[in-house]
């Protein structure tokens, strides 16, 4: 869909700043009034372009919330008429599933699962995912450490190295 320049600008501002940035500040940055900015945000939400205000959280730092993430390569047999869509739908409705992508290459679907423990993920794969009719095979990769996620580098030690006053 075709968006206006200002709509795109508001999206870029949201993408590059914390979702907590006040509407007033977005308005100033994009040279809009507060009301215009609110209208744009409403419209973007309505069009489902602006889907969610997200926070990137490094759970591995929080005791008791470490969790386990696995990326699963899934080979499936597509069905006539609905192709991959039907099986993808059956997979993404599980609440453990964070993302599902249709892939080119060696396998068909890339499924990202989050669970509380390795056991939980293993049980999901063996009991729920592999047993689906169209699923031919699965290969599970556990994520050992997250370095960068959704464009955000975790554990980045890039303090401002500039001197306080310079010409």
């Amino acid at each position, binding site marked *: 869909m075709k968006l206006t320049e200002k709509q795109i600008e508001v999206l870029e501002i949201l993408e590059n700043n914390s979702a907590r940035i006040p509407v007033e500040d977005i308005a100033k940055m994009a040279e809009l009034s507060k009301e215009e900015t609110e209208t744009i945000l409403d419209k973007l939400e309505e069009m489902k372009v602006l889907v969610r205000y997200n926070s990137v959280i490094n759970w591995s730092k929080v005791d008791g919330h470490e969790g386990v993430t696995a990326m699963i390569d899934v080979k499936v047999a597509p069905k006539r008429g609905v192709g991959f869509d039907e099986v993808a739908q059956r997979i993404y409705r599980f609440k453990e599933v964070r993302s599902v992508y249709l892939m080119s290459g060696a396998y068909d679907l890339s499924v990202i699962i989050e669970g509380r423990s390795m056991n939980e993920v293993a049980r999901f794969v063996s009991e729920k995912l592999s047993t689906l009719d169209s699923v031919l095979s699965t290969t599970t990769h556990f994520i050992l450490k997250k370095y960068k996620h959704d464009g955000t580098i975790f554990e980045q030690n890039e303090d401002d190295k500039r001197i306080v*006053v310079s010409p």
Partner: protein
Amino acid sequence: MNATKSYLSKTVEELKPSGIRRFFDLAAGMEGVISLGVGEPDFITPWSVREAAILSLEQGYTSYTANAGLMELRDEIAGYMQKGFGVSYSPRSEIIVTVGASQALDIALRAILDPGDEVIVVEPSFVSYVPLVALAGGVPVQVQTLKENGFKILPEQLEKVITDRTKAIILCSPNNPTGTMLSGSELEAIAQIAEKYDLLVLSDEIYAELAYDGEYTSFAAISEMKKRTILISGFSKGFAMTGWRLGFVCAPETISQAMLKIHQYAMMCAPTMAQFAALEALKTGRSDVEDMKKSYKRRRNYFVQSLNELGLTCHVPGGAFYAFPSIESTGLSSEEFAEKLLLEEKVAVVPGNIFGESGEGHVRCSYATSMELLQEAIKRIGLFLKRNQKA
């Protein structure tokens, strides 16, 4: 030994140390300072550029380059000037790669000045123009711009100070510290004066990449002006490469060959790994520059509007990354304002008088700082102003 003998040159003895120094010392020992005092990007040099420098080291490129710089880099600079600014320079005879724009400025002034020659410096100006003119044996003649004119120089102001000894004008657009950008027609008016009085123009275009509103015009691109322009630029600001110390200067052959003589004796050549980094920046860095520029522009919009709302009236700077608000509503001098703000609220800004008399009553704030810190700085400045408004 004669106790009264001084080993220093008169010129150096008479030079004033940069006023920025005092603020640096004052702020250096403090913790939790939000710095709006920096004249450099908050972005780190794009990784692809850093990576190219690392690769050049791995491959063993650790020797001198040609005095004027790597031929490949000069070719690329020529292409960049042609495509980006519509000026064509011969990479062999009209471009010199220098150790930052500062060195470019130094060799340009040394190449053109005889003792007593006058150079017009448009104020408020970057701190080094006046001392560099003096170090080159020239006489700096400062012309003050007015905030009512958005710190733009008017042709009649220039004409008033021109004498038989005037050799050149130094221009900086977009300007440090005011952020003021001159339009094509405003530059043309200056060009006519340069033509009329047969003057050279040292055009400091280091902020050319950071022009937010309207078309950027290079002084050398104005008709008939290339022959009297010494164009100074570099990678520090646009490409976020301040620490690499890499600049360049473009000028007509006779002038650039004269500058090259000074450069080869004083500096030999710019650092090789920095030249490889710059080459990569020109080849692949465009999208990074665009991203950074977009980000600066949004921060400018936020910051300048917020300052105005706080009562620190500020013209909208057309380029660079400085806001230059008036602090007259506080009744404080710019030095007092900067010092009190630093001590009371831990926000570092630079007093305007450091950039020349006409900067008094203003402070320079760099908005090359993250949005989070700008938001916090605005909050703190607001608190400060509540306590420090003139009764």
